[in-house]
């Protein structure tokens, strides 16, 4: 039977800081809800998302546009601005709800404990500041030394860590290539050794060769820091190569969470199955198979399971009741009525 402590989707405050297999949990997101208020009404971008992040693990959040994954990244950093609003839920970083913190307190946390690398992060570098100045810019807020020998040494070590030559410190962003800029952004993000790094599509603007190099660097750094990484993206291939556990998002909800090998070998949720089946492969030429239908409107989502209009296994139940994300197999969470039936028969 499913363990009640892991019956996610309900806001019951939990004291547990350990996941089922005993690994330590560093970030526990519970029933996060975020909406954007548009002239046409509220858009429920994140509609009750829960997941846990273990210390030092690489966790992937994969979904297509409109699935809500980038909104989650911004919410965890409390960077959601009107017309967006965090409607509910908690995000416990080492037991402390970071969504409930004031801006003042949050500012102390950003970079020092939780950092964000955004999409097109290369464009978020200030074009008129040297790289070293941008690195120390963040340190000022955290009371770290900004000048002097110690600072210079730290900067040099940091750059070397991300695979950049020390000369880069004195350069301006326009003198660097796309890959180098991304490394600089990673350097800034890890400069204060955070516990959690959120990487939202960090390589989407880069070529495939550079992408691999950056991801290798990120993985190495993550291991050396002992930090946990949430990798957000839409590239299943990238997820397969980088993450330990993968969460699949659809229409603002998490529909499946599993160790990455399990998901690719035996996807449980119909959306995951169709998604993996639609991936073009290099192994052999075959039929190109997309997912029929259209992504749902977040303005007026369909009742019941958001995927039911496109699901090949749809049942009557699916049109009416929202399936909860529950533990159905060892270590595997899925939100689908198909597996409820399995349970009842068990």
């Amino acid at each position, binding site marked *: 039977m499913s363990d009640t402590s892991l019956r996610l989707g309900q806001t019951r405050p939990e004291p547990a800081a350990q996941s089922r297999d005993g690994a330590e949990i560093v970030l526990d997101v519970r029933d996060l809800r975020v909406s954007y208020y548009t002239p046409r009404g509220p858009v429920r971008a994140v509609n009750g998302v829960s997941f846990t992040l273990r210390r030092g693990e690489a966790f992937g959040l994969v979904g297509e546009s409109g699935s809500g994954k980038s909104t989650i990244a911004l919410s965890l950093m409390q960077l959601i601005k009107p017309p967006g609003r965090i409607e509910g839920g908690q995000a416990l970083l080492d037991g402390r709800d970071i969504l409930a913190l004031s801006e003042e307190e949050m500012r102390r946390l950003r970079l020092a404990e939780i950092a964000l690398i955004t999409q097109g992060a290369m464009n978020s570098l200030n074009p008129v500041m040297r790289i070293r100045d941008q690195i120390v810019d963040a340190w000022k807020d955290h009371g770290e030394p900004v000048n002097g020998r110690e600072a210079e040494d730290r900067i040099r070590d940091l750059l070397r860590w991300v695979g950049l030559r020390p000369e880069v410190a004195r350069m301006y962003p326009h003198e660097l290539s796309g890959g180098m800029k991304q490394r600089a952004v990673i350097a800034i993000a890890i400069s204060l050794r955070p516990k959690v790094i959120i990487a939202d599509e960090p390589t989407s603007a880069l070529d*495939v060769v550079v992408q691999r190099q950056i991801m290798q660097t990120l993985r190495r750094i993550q291991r050396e820091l002992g930090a946990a990484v949430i990798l957000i993206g839409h590239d299943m291939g*990238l997820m397969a190569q980088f993450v330990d556990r993968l969460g699949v998002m659809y229409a603002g909800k998490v529909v499946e969470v599993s160790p990455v090998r399990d998901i690719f070998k035996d996807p449980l949720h119909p959306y995951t199955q169709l998604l993996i089946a639609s991936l073009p492969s290099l192994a052999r030429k075959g039929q190109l198979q997309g997912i029929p239908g259209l*992504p749902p409107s977040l303005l007026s989502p369909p009742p019941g399971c958001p995927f039911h209009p496109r699901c090949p296994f749809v049942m009557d139940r699916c049109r009416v009741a929202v399936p909860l994300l529950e533990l159905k197999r060892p270590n595997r969470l899925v939100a689908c009525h198909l597996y409820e039936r399995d349970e009842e028969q068990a």
Partner: protein
Amino acid sequence: MTTLLEARKVTKVYGGGLFRRDRTVALEDFSLRIEPEPPSITAIVGESGSGKTTLARLLLGMTMPTSGAILYQGKDLRKLSRREWRAFRRDVQAIFQDPYEVYNPFYKVDHVLELPIRNFGLAHSRRERRAMIEEALHAVGLRPEETLGRYPHQLSGGQRQRIMVARALLLRPRLIIADEPVSMVDASLRATILGSLLKLNQEFGISLIYITHDLTTAYQVSQDIIVLYRGSVVEAGDVEQVVRDPQHPYTRLLVGSIPLPNPDRVWQGERVLGRPAGELKPIGSSYCKFHERCPFAMPMCIEQAPPLFQTDPRRVTACYLYREAPAIEPEELVGVFANGHREQAAPRPEVQREGGAGGAGS
């Protein structure tokens, strides 16, 4: 039978003039021929800076080559008469990467479908026009009632791109140049759109030039492939051979860097190649552009740009590692391709690789 579209020793240089330093060679000495029959599918693969976008613009007549020529039915684009230019526009159409930018926000999406019909006089009454549009939409799997009469912002990126495919089909061109048609579309819709493109080729007999940075979709869609690196062809030929048994060090790097959606197949990247050979400074203006990153670089690589060595009836590689094989002229490249002839498809090669992409079987 006159060649439908030909690029003959085309070079495109940006900048230059009085200020030598700004000179970028986007494409160098490129040749390609697309015959009208049978309908072929050619993929052009390259990363940013490879020259593939420049090539698309040149082939569409949106920009003119610095040297060499683009020929439509044997005539230089720059010398076409007004009527010949219209015929060119009818025969050669395009699908662009960005499904947002191509729509004029002032008009409903019907506008992009009506424009070609009106301008080329394809229909003689409103009803005929409407029928043509509906037929094209059906062909790409869209329902007219759900798409027509809407503004672009009311439709998803995938729908908009499919409308673009429908639009390209309306003119019944003989060649469609698709420049990264699915890179800005969600994963679940990519396969559908690529399927539509294949349908255009198989059912409507339209040749395709599929330009992309994504080797995997290129492999799925096309028969012939050209790999570009910094404006030059590094490898070309039958897609099965080039992708599953790459020869040129750059192609091997490219294939090795693809993240496979299979956690047990670890991407290798440079491990496939090893470390770059070291400092080699080119002397003249003709040298292999990949030499700086190539672990196999030799002195001859910087003395003269490698020609296309035909290592196989259906494949060429521009690398001195294969200098034993006979060299061919760029104009002869067309002979290496299947160009739509199914019987000429080469047998799938036996592949020995250490991990990386494309082992024999799945």
